[in-house]
Structures are given as C-alpha cells and as structure tokens.
C-alpha cells in the first residue's frame, strides 16, 4: 500500500502538462482508469499469495469475462492504431491483416483452447511436460516465451512512448517509465487477477470508443458503405486502387507466408494461451474463445470503417497534415486525428486515454506471461528440479515481473525513434515456428520425443531469427544494405516447415526414447485432453 501512495505522489496531476482542452480531458479519464485499476490491484494483492490466484486468477474468471480479456490482449494499440493507419494509407490491404489476425481464433478454439484448459495449469509448458522430459522442454518453452514477449514488449513500449509523447506532450522517457512502473505494480502485486481486470476494463473502453467513432463516420454517409467508399476513392491519391489488394503483398509466397505467421503465431502467443487457464472448465474455455472471436471480428470491421473514414476526413484537411501532405505524427495517428475531426476535443481526449490504457493493459499481460515462464518453468522445474515451495516460486515470479518491467523500460528507451514495427511480425514468426509446433505436436502426434521437440524447436527458433535478419525488413531497412540475402519479408512458410520437419526427423530417429512408454503417455494425455480426467 505504501508503494501505491509513493507512486501517486510521484505522478500527481501536473505531470500532464496540458496544452489543450483535449489533453486535460484525456488526462482526467486516464487518471480515473489508473485509480480504478490500482484499487483492483490492491484488492487482488491480498489474494496473490496463492499460486492459483497469481498465475490463473484462481480459475474463477467466467467465459464472457475471459473472452473480453483475451480480446483486450489481442486488440493492442498496434492493431487499433496500426490497422486503421494501414487502411488510411492503402485501403483494402489493411483488411488482409485484420482477417489474418482473426482467422487464427476459430483454429485456436477447434484445436487448442479446451485441450489447453484440460491439460494445463499455469503455463503452456505444463502441457508439453506431461509427456516430455521436464527440464529440457521447460527450457525450450521458456526461451520461446521470453523471446516472443520481449520482442512484443519492445514494439509496445516504443509505440507507447511516442504515442504518449504526441497525445499528452510528455517527454518520451517519462512516458515509458509511467507505463513500465504501472505495469510492474499491476503484475507483481495483482498477478493474473489484476491483469485480467485491467484487460477487461480496457477492452470495454476500446470497443465502446471504436464503436462510437465508426458510428459517427457512418452517420456522415447516411449509413451507406458504398457512399463512404465512393468519397474515399474520390479523395485518395491511389483512387480505385484502395478498394482491392495492392502494394502490401506482391507475390503468392508472401501472401501465404503472412497468413501462416498470423494464424499459427496467434495460437503460439504465450500471453494469450495462459488466459485459457483462468476459466473453471473446458466449457468456459470454449465460450471465451467464442466471445473473443466475436469481439475481435467486430473490432476489425470497425477499424476498417474508421480507416476509410480517416481517408475522407483527413487526407484533404490541412489541420492534420504536415508541409509534405503527410499525416501529422505518422499514419498510425489516423484514428486519433479522426476522433478529433469528427467528435471534437472531448472525444479526442477519450480516444487518447483509451489508447494509453490499451498499451498499459497489453504490456501487463506480456509481463505476466514472461514472469510465469521464469518463476515457474525455469526456477521451479529447471533450477530446483521441481522441489521449490509455493512461497519461493511466487517470490521468484514476482521479482521476475519487476525485472521484465525494468528490462522493458530500458529497451523501450534504447530503441527510441527506431522503426520497431517488424518486431511484432518477428514475435508472431517465432511463436508460429517454435511455440506452436511443440504444443500442437505434443497433443496430436504420438511419436513425438523430447529430443525431437527440443532440438527441432530450437532449429525453428534459430531459422526464424536468421531469416528475418537476412530478409528485407532488417537487412535492408534497418542495416541499410542494398539487397536482402533472403528475399521474403515474411519467412513463416519456410520456418514453420523447417521446424515441423526437424521435429519429425529427430523424433523418428531418436533411438533412446522408450517407444512403449512414450505411446502410453500419449494415450493418457489424449484421454485427459478430451475428457478432462485421467
């Protein structure tokens, strides 16, 4: 509690050096959000001395609540601002991303969600280690988790810093510190209970805000999509090209590869997977996936409308453009500027506060996933060989969340001003090529062996990082070389195949594993996966 008070005294009202009415309003809404979430954290902190509560909110979250929380985890500022910005910039292409992000969800529901709930407790490594050797598989799973969440965190922190800088006129470093410290408080004190509620509140605010924004846009065109598109075509410099696929994806291999990364990557994101442990049973796990899919799908339709609305209202309005005719701040500001243009100062303030809350909620979920990987998978099962008591485990997990939070602050400041958008893509590629294959084969392939999963997964991880570094996004755009060594921007089609083949070949040729014992464990796991009991 003392820490909470100390925190408040560090950031009193005047921190938001407001220049306009909107900033002032945004600051108030955001402060209300912070106060409510800190109160929740305070009450949650009384319960997080028990493992079940800290990692999984005691399994007491309902399907509907969890669906909102999952949607909240998934609808990051990157997808809200990024996708509406992409639609603003190139129209239809934004829809390709949205759909890729969405169709991962039915697949998760059909193949993973209920099995995850039936088999696992707190981390997805709990499942793989049912039939595979504890220490090796936990090491691999935690590496996969930590790489994924670190990349994701960097992208979110850098985005947070620059967004808050523009919205509230705060210094970049202060913005990163505020986000970092708040998330450390949520996660280390409130664990999964606080993280889930922060996520639920934010998801509600975001869906509400985006709905109002899309409604206001639609109203201007007497609720006709055709009218909206017609106006957009007549003001956009690419004219009719904004209505069909264009510059984003130029060849079939990139198109398929992006699709694979988005679908399988979603099914391998640790902070999303761990949400399925917070519900009481398989039935609620399914219901959470259903609500999550519905909210996310609805949200992406909104971002599409918002993006086209931004084309109409912003691209000819000098108020929002710089001298070269580009959108102030970058294309990612499309939704924010639109809220001002169509809803005035107060609505701008509301949307800005929601964007801030969104970032905060998403980074908290990521930090918790990382902390569980360190505290549970690495500390308890690798270092202590399963012989740690609950108190020690929680202490390590909570300290890990502080450590990850500080690391995120440091990395956020380190990468200031750099283009980090590729990191989300890389996180999805790693999740698709390492986490997903191990998890999927554990529950569906009887001949999988520990060595196969371990070395195959590592090969997949190394291949992904190598191909992304040698590809156009890093080799050309970051390092500044003329030509990429590896020609494709999205390597998933290759890296996922490499990973699956490596796991397959190594498992088949693995002579040390007792085949009979392995099969027996697999049968047991399958039974539990479907029936929920051994």
């Amino acid at each position: 509690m003392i820490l909470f008070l100390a925190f408040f005294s560090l950031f009193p009202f005047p921190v938001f050096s407001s220049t306009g009415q909107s900033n002032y309003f945004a600051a108030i809404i955001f402060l209300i959000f912070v106060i409510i979430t800190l109160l929740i954290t305070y009450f949650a902190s009384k319960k997080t001395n028990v493992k079940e509560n800290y990692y999984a909110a005691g399994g007491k979250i309902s399907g509907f609540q969890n669906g909102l929380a999952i949607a909240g985890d998934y609808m990051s500022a990157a997808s809200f601002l990024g996708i509406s910005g992409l639609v603003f910039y190139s129209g239809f292409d934004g829809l390709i991303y949205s759909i890729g992000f969405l169709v991962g969800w039915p697949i998760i529901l059909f193949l993973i969600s209920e099995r995850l709930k039936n088999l696992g407790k707190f981390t997805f490594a709990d499942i793989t280690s049912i039939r595979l050797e504890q220490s090796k598989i936990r090491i691999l799973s935690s590496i996969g988790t930590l790489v994924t969440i670190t990349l994701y965190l960097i992208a979110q922190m850098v985005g947070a810093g620059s967004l808050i800088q523009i919205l509230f006129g705060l210094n970049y470093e202060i913005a990163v510190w505020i986000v970092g410290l708040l998330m450390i408080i949520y996660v280390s004190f409130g664990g999964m209970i606080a993280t889930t509620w922060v996520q639920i509140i934010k998801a509600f605010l975001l869906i509400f805000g985006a709905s109002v924004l899309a409604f206001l846009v639609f109203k201007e065109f007497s609720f006709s999509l055709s009218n909206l598109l017609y106006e957009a075509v007549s003001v956009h410099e690419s004219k009719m090209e904004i209505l069909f696929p264009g510059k984003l994806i130029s060849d079939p291999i990139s198109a398929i590869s992006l699709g694979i990364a988005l679908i399988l990557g979603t099914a391998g994101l640790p902070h999303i997977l761990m949400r399925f442990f917070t519900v009481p049973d398989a039935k609620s796990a399914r219901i959470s996936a259903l609500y999550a899919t519905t909210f996310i799908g609805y949200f992406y339709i909104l971002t599409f409308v918002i993006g086209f609305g931004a084309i109409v209202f912003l691209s000819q309005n000098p108020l929002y453009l710089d001298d070269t005719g580009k959108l102030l701040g970058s294309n990612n500001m499309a939704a924010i500027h639109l809220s001002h243009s169509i809803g005035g100062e107060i609505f701008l303030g509301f949307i800005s506060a929601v964007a801030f809350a969104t970032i905060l909620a998403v980074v908290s979920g990521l930090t918790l996933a990382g902390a569980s990987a360190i505290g549970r998978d690495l500390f308890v099962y690798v270092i202590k060989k399963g012989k740690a008591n609950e108190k020690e485990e929680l202490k390590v997990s909570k300290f890990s969340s502080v450590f990850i939070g500080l690391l995120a602050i440091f990395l956020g400041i380190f990468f200031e001003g750099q283009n980090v958008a590729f990191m989300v893509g890389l996180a999805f590629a790693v999740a698709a090529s390492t986490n997903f294959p191990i998890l999927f084969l554990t529950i569906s392939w009887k001949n999988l062996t520990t060595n196969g999963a371990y070395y195959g997964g590592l090969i997949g991880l190394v291949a992904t990082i190598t191909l992304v570094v040698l590809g156009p996004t890093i080799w050309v755009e970051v390092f500044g070389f003329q030509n990429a060594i590896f020609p494709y921007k999205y390597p998933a089609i290759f890296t996922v195949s490499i990973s699956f083949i490596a796991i397959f070949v190594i498992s088949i040729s693995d002579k040390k594993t007792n085949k009979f014992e392995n099969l027996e464990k697999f049968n047991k796991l399958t039974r539990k996966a479907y029936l929920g009991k051994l």
Partner: protein
Amino acid sequence: MNKIIAFSFSLLVLFFYFSFILIIGFKPELFGILVGDSYITVGIVIGLFVIVFSIFITFVYTFISNNYLDKIKDQLNK
C-alpha cells in the same frame, strides 16, 4: 468424433482463408470488380464474409460442443 468435427471445421476455415489469400497472391484484380452499381468491391464483400463466417463457425462449434459433445463425455467419464 470431437476430433473429426474439430479438424473438419478447421479445414473449412483454412479453406476460405487461403482461397482469399491465394486470390490476393495470384489474381488481385478479381477483387477489384465492383458489386452492382455500388462502390463496394468483390474483395471487400469476401473479406467481410470471411470475418462473419469465422464468428459464425465458432458459434456453431461452441454450441455443438457445449450442448452435445460434453454430455457424451460425461457419460464416458462415468
């Protein structure tokens, strides 16, 4: 049975999605055709269809599982 439903539903979603993606990869101009005398293109209609279909099929799966398959599982457990 659970497995058959899960896999066939997944294949159905993947089929629609990859048809969408392959058209983008091979024949993007197909998506530029206007529907009727509106400014809505075939691509936008199909894109929105994929979203709505994804939501619909998750609903169907959840409904079948929660109302029928779970009862069979309870019996098996007994």
